[in-house]
Each structure stands twice: as C-alpha cells, then as structure tokens.
C-alpha cells in the first residue's frame, strides 16, 4: 500500500468540528481525550483560518524517537502506531510532537498521566488484531474494512483529506491552481518533509531509510 497522509486545507475548513465529533464517536474516546481538534487562528479577525489537526503520522516521527520504552512503530503505510501495553505515560512524546497530538487520560486523582492516546489513522492497534480489547484501547480498525479515516470521510467541505499521499497532494495542487492562491496545508511539510504544492513532489512512497526503529512488516 502507498504512503498514507493527512492534509488539511485551511482555505476550506469551516470549523464545523464534524471530524472531532465523529472521531470521538467512532472510537468511543473517553472524556478529556481528543485525538483530533480544530484550531482556529486569528479567530474573529480578517484572515481567520481553521485547521483540523491530529497526529500527522510523520515521516521520521519525533514521538517514536524520544520514547523511553520505544513503544512506537510505523507501518509500511507510514502510519505511526503505539502500543499501550508498553507505554508508560511519561509525556515525552507530547513534548516532542510538533502538533500536540499525544493525549493522556488522568490516571489518578492526582492528575497523573495514564497511557498515551492518539490518532491511529483509524488503523486499530499496533498488533493488528481486531478484538474487543484492541477496540477499547485503540478504536476501530477502519482500514481493515477498506475504509479511510472517518474524520476525512465526514468532512463537509472536503478540507480534510486522507489517503495516498500523492493522490491527496494532487487534489490539493489542483485546488491551489484553480483558486490561484492559498498555501494552507498546515503541518504537511513539517510532517512529511515535502510540499504538496506544485513545487513539491507529494511523494507516495514511504522512504525506507526514514522508518522509525521498529517497523511493522508490510
């Protein structure tokens, strides 16, 4: 399979929060945890932009790099998954993540951090089993059902795109060319080290030399 990515076109996002809601609903995410959220920049001012942000499943993911117990793995599709059996809830991945994706439930009354939770690209858990236990920990494995992440499917303006990196970059390029302005794919180049606009490649191949230490076999 190809290298899958997320792309949020801030020019189109209308801050309806459907992605946030449907993500919480689909995976039955507990209170206080938000795998996806919509951030509005310059709220109420000219040039206001909204961006739907979650784990971007980075190439060369910082979270995986700083984890003290190496609980992350990246699938051959480039999806960054982590094992909640190994995670110790130290919070380091949150310090390193450019997008603030890792979330921690409150484990005790002292607000200590529980095991990290983040977007799985609707790919379930790292062990790739579709059990009720896996669902409770990681949420639904929609990719196994041949579906895309629900946030992108539910997006009312198709601002949020998910799928093959090259395909969504092509869609985005066409949009930019048609409307003649707007380079509003926030986070893309930080996460994937290329550009989705005509100058960049938007490659669909996951670079093997940038795989994190533990990669799930294809």
């Amino acid at each position, binding site marked *: 399979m190809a290298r899958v990515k997320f792309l949020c076109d801030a020019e189109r996002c209308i801050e309806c929060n459907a992605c946030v809601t449907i993500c919480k609903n689909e995976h039955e995410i507990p209170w206080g945890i938000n795998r996806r959220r919509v*951030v509005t920049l310059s709220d109420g001012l000219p040039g206001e932009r909204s*961006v739907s942000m979650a784990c971007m499943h980075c190439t060369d993911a910082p979270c995986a790099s700083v984890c003290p117990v190496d609980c992350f793995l990246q699938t051959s599709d480039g999806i960054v998954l982590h094992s909640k059996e*190994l995670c110790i809830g130290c919070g380091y991945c949150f310090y390193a993540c450019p997008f603030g994706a890792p979330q921690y439930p409150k484990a005790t009354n002292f607000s200590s*951090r529980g095991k990290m939770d983040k977007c799985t690209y609707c790919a379930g858990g790292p062990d790739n089993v579709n059990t009720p236990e896996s669902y409770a920990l990681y949420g639904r494995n929609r990719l196994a059902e041949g579906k895309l992440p629900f946030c992108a499917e539910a997006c009312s303006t198709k601002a949020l795109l998910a799928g093959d990196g090259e395909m969504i970059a092509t869609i985005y390029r066409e949009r930019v060319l048609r409307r003649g302005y707007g*380079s509003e794919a*926030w986070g893309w180049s*930080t996460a994937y080290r290329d*550009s989705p606009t005509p100058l960049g490649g938007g490659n669909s191949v996951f670079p093997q030399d940038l795989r994190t230490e533990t990669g799930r076999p294809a």
Partner: protein
Amino acid sequence: MTRMRHLASRSRGFAFALALLFSPLPVFAQAPAPQSPAAQPPAAQNQGTGSNAATDRGVHPNPSRMPNASEDELMRVLRQGQMPPDKVVGNVYLPDRKLAVLVQPEGRTWRDFRVSTSRWVHGILIGLAVLSILVLALVRGRDGYRPDPEGRRVLRFRPVDRFVHWLTAVSFIVLALTGLNIVFGRVLLQPWLGDAAFSAMTQWGLLAHNFTGYAFMFGILAMAVMWVQDNLFHRVDWTWFKRGGGLLTKEHIPAEKFNAGQKLIYWGAVLGGLVMAITGVLMMLPISSLGVNGMQWVQGIHTVVAGLMVALIIGHIYLGTWGVAGSFDAMARGDVDLHWARTHHPLWIERIYGRRRDRRAEPAE
C-alpha cells in the same frame, strides 16, 4: 499579524493570477504530478533559466513567490505579526488549552536534546566522575589513619542526622537508577530485556521515581535546615580550596566539622536537590500547567542537574567509604575515632574541646 498574513496571501494570489494570464489554465490543472522531488529541478534553478521552461512544466514563473506549504514560509509570515515566533497558537473550542497550540517547532530542539545531548551530557559527567575517583584511588590510594591508642571516639552525627542522611541517600539511589533508565534504558537495557520486560520495569521505575521523590525532597529540606550552620563557608575553606584540598598532595589542611569539599557537596545536594524537586513536581503535574515549551525546559533542567548530581554523589560515595578510611563510621555508627577526627577536622575537635574543657568530660558517650 492577521493583517500581514492576509495581505501576504493576497499578494501571492495576485502574483499567481498574473502568471495565469501567460499560461492557459488547463495546462496547469492537468500538468502531471511530479513523480518525486528528485525528478524535478530545484526552484532556484528555474529562476535563472527564465520563465518559459518553468511555465511549460506547470510551475510558477517566479518560484520565490510561488505559494508553498513550507512551514518556514508560514512561520516567516507569522513572525511579522504578533504571534510568538516559537509556536503557532489559535483558539480551540475545547476546555484543554494546550490543544490550542497548532504547531510548535521547538519540539525539534527538544528531540535533539532528548535523543542526543542529554545522553552525551550524562555520559561525560558520569565518565568524568568515575575517572576522577580512579585517579584518586591510583595516585593517592586509600587514606589510612592510626586509631586513637585509648580507643576514644567522638560523636559526629546524631541518630536523626543519620536517619536523614540515609533516607536521602537511599531515595537518591532509587531516583538515580530509575532516572538513568529513562535516559539510557532504551539504548542499553531494552535490547537485552526485550520490549515487555523493559517496559514493565520502566513503568515500575517511573512509579518508584515519582513516589521516592517525596522522600528525597523531605531529606533535602531536613538537611538544608539541620546542617546549614556547619556548612557555611569561612576563611579556612579558602585555604583548603587554594591547596586543592590536599587531594593529591596527601596533606591534611585544617578543616572544621566539614571541609570545604564536603561543604561543596552539601550545597550541591541542597541546591541541586531543590532544583530537582521543583522541576520534578512540575513534571508530575498535568502538562497544561506550563505549556509544552515550559515542559521542555523543565525536563531539560531536570536532566542536566540530575547528571551533575549523579557525578557529585559518585565522588561523595567514594570519599565516604573506601577513599578515606574511618569516615564511613561517621554515618554508619555516628561516632568517629578521636584521632581520625583530629587528623581530618582539627578545628571541629578544638571547638568541642574548647566547649567542654571546664567539665573535663569525654568528647562522646
């Protein structure tokens, strides 16, 4: 900031609209997607060769003004406005304020610190500490002493002193080992132990670290209060420093109850311990209390000071046990040999005798 960004995006849009005049839209829209960044000449090259070749490829005639999603570009636009340059913050309709941070490039710096710098700092500090005790042991050897012929002993640490010392010492060992496991465990232990065992060990280690921290904090605060009057620096300490404490020359420089080196260890432990306590408690609190960049600083300070303290305590353990014969009695039994005390801490013995001369009493017991 909004104004600037708005203008910037519009002017880029305008430039692009100009470009569209020179080239029909279908060419743009149906231009094949470049296969890979390598297959496409870099933007700078297009600029020099003129716009014709560039437009044929469906590339903007002036690549420097071409809209792109480069984060640097976005940050540059943001820097002209009121947005803090270190991160992009917006509004989020969730009670969790830390989610309002959209992008924080500081994470890269912290990642480098965590993956590389912190390991080097710890490795070098611990290496230096071990090296210096090796040099001490080889050059100076064990510092022996002749026991007092009458077997007289003098009380050095009360039971409460020893309790506080060992409470702090044991909790420090636990904290240091579990902390070093966070820094080096993934490199040194995980390949041997396997993922599950190492993760379980680290999980328990983290728990132990968090709880033992309170015992350590109590010990540090008690030490700070109980021993401060014996650890203030005086003129004699300057002599000790000037002669390097006689560490390598084997001479005994007159010292009070604690010599200047011991006072340094005291202040290192108390001040370092306080920094560790403050940063440690901050790290246990939810992340939202300081924001993500604050947490990065807190973690960095905690790690560096931890390395300094581990190095300091390695030296302390050596000098308190094997390095100086007779000194371990002080913390193990509470009293020390009178002759040992006269050799190492003559001013302290003078002070005790001066105080007790009238009563003609034995120094201890």
